[in-house]
């Protein structure tokens, strides 16, 4: 009986303690993002409004998203998590979740309902691709081309397979130095039906087929590894066409007024969003959750589209996106006639395998 009492007392104490701390929110928040125009859109759309409402909060930015997975793992092993909220692409979120480095959450508990009253889990819908991933925007990887380099008497390229057509469209192309997306495009242009691409790619023959297709343009390809490479190469006239994120192309076309055109065909949709690292102090976590509920509501996500050409991840935000930006969104019906959805589970399994083959092919 005495034991029972002790147990009850201690559990009551723990409960009381946790409630006490939950109300107490830390006033400093370290947010990890990508830097550049994207981070700026986050700053303008929700960090600044939030800090205005809660002036006691100071936000520290860390532009480490591209190495977030490795850094978080190192922090976790050192048992010293210094980040409160991390912006990562969905594939990285899945990895972090797998590794137990990102916190699982309940969408309906953590996130607010949409403006139209739909529950968060439905408003975000399928975009919650991992139990740890809080979707923010939809972006796409697609092609841009130099309008002044289109050969005379030929229509501007408007199909993905034009990338592989060196006869009609001679010139250099830039592709990302990794198999993801390139293998899918190669198969699509080698006559594989869209819904069979991943089945084919899972086999050694399918990988051979994709690489053989890429082989036909290999000599004309400049391989990029940073998102800024293709816009730069396009601006320099180094390449005729190249793949990159649609927001980057938007800024080359609209903000820098370069003679560059968009080719939306077979654009690959991908997601970017937040994860909360595991092992935060209670006060820090309370602050992050408080901020997140605000930053992912319908209005804030729609606001973000004012600053960058990425689509909001909430369905209910779509109608609020300003008209002049709609035409630049990857999700705009005009642009999304033929899209391709990145298969996270496939790449989680096959990434290392295909990457080894791809790198070995590149080195040949």
């Amino acid at each position: 009986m005495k034991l029972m009492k002790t147990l009850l007392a201690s559990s009551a104490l723990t409960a009381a303690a946790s409630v006490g701390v939950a109300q107490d929110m830390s006033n400093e928040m370290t947010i990890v993002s990508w830097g550049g125009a994207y981070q700026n859109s986050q700053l303008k759309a929700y960090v600044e409004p939030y800090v205005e409402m809660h002036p006691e909060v100071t936000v520290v930015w860390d532009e480490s998203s591209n190495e977030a997975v490795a850094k978080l793992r190192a922090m976790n092993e050192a048992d010293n998590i210094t980040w409160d909220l991390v912006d990562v692409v969905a594939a990285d979120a899945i990895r972090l979740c797998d590794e137990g480095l990102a916190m699982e959450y309940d969408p309906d508990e953590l996130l607010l309902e949409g403006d139209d009253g739909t529950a968060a889990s439905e408003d975000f819908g399928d975009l919650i691709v991992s139990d740890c991933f809080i979707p923010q925007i939809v972006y796409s990887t697609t092609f841009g081309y130099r309008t002044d380099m289109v050969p005379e008497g030929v229509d501007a390229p408007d199909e993905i397979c034009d990338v592989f057509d060196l006869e009609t469209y001679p010139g250099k192309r830039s592709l990302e130095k990794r198999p993801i997306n390139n293998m899918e495009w190669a198969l699509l242009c080698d006559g594989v039906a869209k819904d069979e691409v991943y089945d084919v790619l899972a086999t050694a023959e399918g990988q051979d087929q994709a690489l053989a297709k890429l082989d036909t343009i290999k000599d004309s390809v400049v391989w990029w590894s940073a998102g800024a490479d293709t816009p730069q190469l396009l601006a320099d006239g180094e390449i005729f066409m190249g793949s990159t994120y649609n927001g980057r192309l938007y800024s080359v076309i609209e903000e820098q007024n370069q003679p560059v055109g968009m080719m939306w065909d077979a654009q690959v949709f991908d997601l970017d969003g937040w994860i909360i690292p595991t092992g935060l102090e209670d006060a820090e976590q309370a602050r992050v959750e408080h901020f997140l509920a605000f930053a992912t509501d319908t209005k804030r996500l729609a606001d973000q589209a004012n600053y960058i050409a990425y689509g909001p991840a909430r369905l209910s935000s779509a109608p609020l996106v300003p008209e002049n930006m709609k035409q630049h969104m990857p999700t705009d019906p005009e642009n999304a006639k033929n899209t391709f959805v990145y298969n996270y589970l496939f790449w989680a399994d096959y990434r290392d395998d295909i990457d080894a083959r791809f790198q070995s092919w590149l080195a040949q």
Partner: protein
Amino acid sequence: MSNAKDDDAVAGPVPVAPVDAGPVLAADGTPLKRSLSRALRRQKGRALLLIAPLLIFVLVTFIIPIGSMLFRSVENDIVANTLPYTVQELASWDAETGEIPSEDVFKAMYDDLFLSAEAKRHTRLGSRLNYEQTGMSSLFRQSGRGIDDLAGDAEDALEDAVPAFGDGETWYALMNAGAGEGNTSLLSNVRGRIGRLNDGLASADMDFVPSAEIAAVLPRTARTYTEWAVYTVTEDERVPADNDPWELVSLALVEELKTADLSGLSGDQAALLRQAQAVEFDIPPYSETFAEIDDEWVTIIPWETIQTHSSKYTAGYFLNAIDAQKTPDGYEWQPEEKQILLTLFGRTLFMSLMITGSCILLGYPVAWLLANLPASKANLLMILVLLPFWTSLLVRTSAWKVMLQSQGVINDVLVWIGLVDDANRFVMINNQFGTIVAMTHILLPFMILPMYSVMQTVPPTYLRAAKSLGATNWTAFWRVYFPQSVPGIGAGSILVFILSIGYYITPEIVGGTTGVFISNRIAYHISSSLNWGLAAALGSILLVVVLVLYWCYDRIVGIDNVKLG
């Protein structure tokens, strides 16, 4: 020598040592050898104390982190820590027979997987095994999701029949030893297991001890309940008595009660268990449950993979690092289309040598000029040599991009003066040429400075003397000056070679596909594929290669001949 004798020696007058027996003694009577070594030890201790701050600093910030990182290249305890019972059961299974493992293995796997899914460790194991066998990652992820269906049904059936089992306290009263005899060895086993699973110590205080009586009759139930209790206390920091245990415990109970002999038990608990014995719930073979989650489980592939890679230490990462792999049939090369790393090692060495060579060629005349010009001009030149040092590495690399690209400065000039046709511009970037040019430029100061400081010490009179004795300019240089500058070349070469072999950022930017180094692969495995074991193995190999080359250099040139000034 005993202490008593020492004391005697000190107390008495200086003894006259017998000529033929006993050791030589010092003035104070202790044996000379000992007093010498004591004096030396004190000296060494003092020296050690003096360097202690640096030593500790280097140890803590350099040796230990690098050592622990390199250790990952052989560490492989994740398999045995996550699936301990499965690994144990699998030991007696022979993949050669081509048959899937027995029901016992599936059952052990069920328990292991259930626990690791609760602890969210199964996906981590999946990623580890996916390095060896494609598809394991999604297999584990899916299985973690589907694993509790069966146990959930069992729990529902149990709670329908005996509602008391819906209450955590009933369970606690049943499983806890209380006043009776406790099975502490089970408890410490489970603590060890949970601790290993979570890379920590599951040593939190708890009042629960599994009852020895129950553990004897219902071993699996007792074990799974204890696992849950330890996990609940250490990870969730909750009290076992207030919470309902995992569905797995209900499943174990329902299954064990079908065959258990309860005659030895008495009291309330026995009555409760007899009541529960009446639960009608058919448990399908575990292999069927697994087959339902994924057909892959009823093939030998996952089992073979687990068995092959279950040892605590593995050579697997090192094998992968040299394009080989460990398969159930032994070691073999990776399929040819996946071999990449040996090529990269070879290329890294080749290009580092090329860069070192071109640094020598370009650096030698500059260093000679620096050492022989009048001071005012030499200083100006020195600033030009050092200027790149003060510019960011990224800026210098990007500048080369602007220079070398096909619409770049060099090509534009060549086209403008008509040397090159506009359609056939030179390809000077995104290949080995680009990497060699950019890195030669970046590393050049590391070659020039040691050369310069050595050349400065060569007296100009030697050259004059040689010439006055009738040597031609070339002979005087080659026979008199050059040999004296070799130590500088040696020092510069080692510096440049070792720096370039681990270079990462420049090859990444200007290397394209044929100009990248092994370090780019290491970076990929550290930051995007998260295969730190492989990255550590690659790093270890690189380290060993550098050390071996250094050793060769020492044997051939002699490290004494290297001078930095």
